[in-house]
């Protein structure tokens, strides 16, 4: 049977969902691969939800909101844009093709545009093929990475940074210092890198407790870097020493309260 992509769509209630509705009542044909989930605002689409759905094997995720300036909630779509950037960043870090993600603006009167976008995105995902983590034998390395990306998106640090981004970049910080988008992006890149790696370590230790050296081999990262992260994770209460085997400590993951 030919590959039919399974694409999950988050549509904002006011513009895009109405646009999809218009496509329906106007009897415009478009591929049935998009499974529509209604949210009130595109800004409500939590990166952790998107990454969790990707980790579960979705072939693509499409988010649509009102055009910039037309948001029913004033500027929710600007938040959607910031959050989408983080989602994409983390997905790329995890090693998933960025072409599996899409953010578009569709107004309530753009039924045809909605249909065209769904058609284009479906074809784009079809070319990429099934998600490596879908089906009966998901790629274990990518699975771990996507779970780590999801955990990173659930963590305090990245959420707090994205939450403050709009204000800091457009208005400056409380001391009146301006932060340029480039500076911000650079800082975000570092933060995403760190958080992603730490959650990868945490998840790897959750699978089975092991040493820094073994982790270094499994995750293809230098031992020194792993050790720094393990120390940081210990301070956060996410990792502890289980036992000392020979001369090297064996670390284990601790349950993090939700």
């Amino acid at each position, binding site marked *: 049977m030919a590959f039919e992509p399974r694409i999950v769509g988050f549509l904002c209630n006011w513009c895009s969902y109405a646009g999809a509705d218009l496509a329906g009542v106007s009897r415009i044909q478009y591929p049935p691969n998009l499974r529509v*989930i209604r949210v009130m605002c595109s800004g409500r689409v939590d*990166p952790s939800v998107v990454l969790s759905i990707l980790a579960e094997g979705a072939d693509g995720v499409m988010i649509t909101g009102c055009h910039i300036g037309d948001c029913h909630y004033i500027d929710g779509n600007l938040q959607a844009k910031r959050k989408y950037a983080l989602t994409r960043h983390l997905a790329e870090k995890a090693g998933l093709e960025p072409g599996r993600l899409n953010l578009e603006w569709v107004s*309530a009167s753009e039924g045809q545009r909605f249909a065209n976008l769904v058609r284009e995105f479906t074809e784009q995902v079809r070319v990429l093929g099934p998600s490596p983590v879908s089906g009966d034998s998901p790629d274990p390395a990518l699975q771990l990475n996507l779970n780590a990306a999801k955990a990173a998106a659930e963590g305090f640090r990245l959420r707090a940074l994205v939450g403050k981004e709009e204000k800091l970049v457009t208005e400056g910080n409380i001391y009146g210092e301006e932060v340029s988008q480039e500076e911000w992006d650079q800082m975000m890149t570092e933060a995403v890198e760190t958080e992603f790696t730490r959650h990868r370590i945490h998840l790897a230790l959750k699978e089975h407790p092991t040493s820094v050296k073994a982790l270094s081999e499994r995750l293809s990262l230098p031992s020194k870097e792993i050790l720094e992260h393990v120390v940081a994770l210990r301070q956060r209460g996410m990792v502890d020493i289980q036992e000392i085997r020979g001369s090297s400590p064996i670390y284990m993951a601790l349950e993090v309260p939700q």
Partner: protein
Amino acid sequence: MTWKESSWPPAHPGPTNTSSSTPARRWGSTSTSSRWLTSVTSAAGCTCTSLRRRRRRRRTWSVAKARLLKPQEEPEIEIRPETLVIGGGISGITAAISLSNQGFLVHLIEKEEELGGMLLRLDRLFPTQIKSEELLKPRIEAIESDPNITVHTGTKVRDVSGFIGNFEVEVENRHDEIESLKVGTIIVATGAENLDPVGLYGYGEDSRIVTQLQLEEMIKDDGLGEFETVVMIQCVGSRNEERPYCSRVCCSEAMKNATMIRESHPESEVYILYRDLQTYGTSYTPLEWDAKKNFVKLVKYDAQRPPEVTPEDEAVWVSVYSPLLDEDITLKADLVVLSTPLIPRDDAKGLSQILKVPLNPDGFFMEAHVKLRPIDFATDGIYVCGTAHSPKEIGESVAQALGVASRAAIPMAQGNLRTAAIVSVVDESKCSGCGTCIELCPYNAIQKDETGIARVTAAVCKGCGVCGASCPERAITMQHFTNEQLEAQGLAALGRVDD
């Protein structure tokens, strides 16, 4: 009117004593409703056409959400018994009178200096042949003497905010003065304009080539003069690629005017060059018989070979190929009348953005559903009637206007409405008081309490969910759209259901 004298609506404060008071949103009174245990999926939103093609694919992800739904508290809002009618043409006038008769206050906004709209330019109205003044005058007088209706002429809508029951509208008059109105419902009755067919059939180059609307004005002003031959051309600038629609009124209007000219000038000849005659229904087909009885000559033309109009000093020459006769006909005309379509007004797009309601591809206001909700917008509390919606004749506009008056009266007569319980809730045990949500909330619905913990004011929260998606501690739950529900929907959409 007996309606006004009775105490309608019965258990609801009459408009006279609520006009200036602020709309009390009775957020205090809430009730728990199990209606939030239903998750509705839109078949149309999921492409009903493809649904039919693939019936096996059930909309299971709505079910996945339904499993996790909880009863919600529903705040109740009061609906202000006051309407804003935008547009003072026959549709707006009719809707305003009807609502006033039902006991509601009406603000009637007209951007021109005078009420009446397109009817002011028309002479006699088919099919009854009454003068347009006979229809307009008593209604305008009724409006002017009606204490329930406030007329704002020379006024435009500048901004609209709020929602059903409590819209706040800023209007601007000709002196750039801004007034703000508070209304419960809004009716769009802005009408349409007539296409000015510049560049088509020599229009604008010769005063003997006019539109059907200009002919009406000439008849109205008795400026018809002497002539021997009148040629009318139908579908000028409509039913083509640019404007694929039929303007619905032009065929009947041409029949009416042609018959009238034949009656007042029996020596004259009147030709109507048409593509298809669409004098539909029981009232308008007789107009065609009347025209034929009066020897109005109907000549079919081919859209691929449209008539050619050549103005010269002694006459305007019109040559047309008749596919029925398979020959070219040349007519010597004194007057050429172009039947041009009704087109959306220039400012329709601006208004659609202010009201956040859609226009259809032709640029007319678009209803929520062509069959199931033909005069509502998808946005609650906003309705559409008349030619703002699509080209239609006066009877149809009046019928629609009475329809919207009934639709708008429903929530206003009920007096209050339970609103969506989609608000965010903070889990106090998780909140660390970081303030991210406070900065992000577009409505300032979140504040820190004395202990430094974020609190949501449910009355102000509009339910966008940005706070929930951003909360670093994940302490905020967006009711009815929780992360768990969305993830469950996503899983089910992938064909996986957790037990």
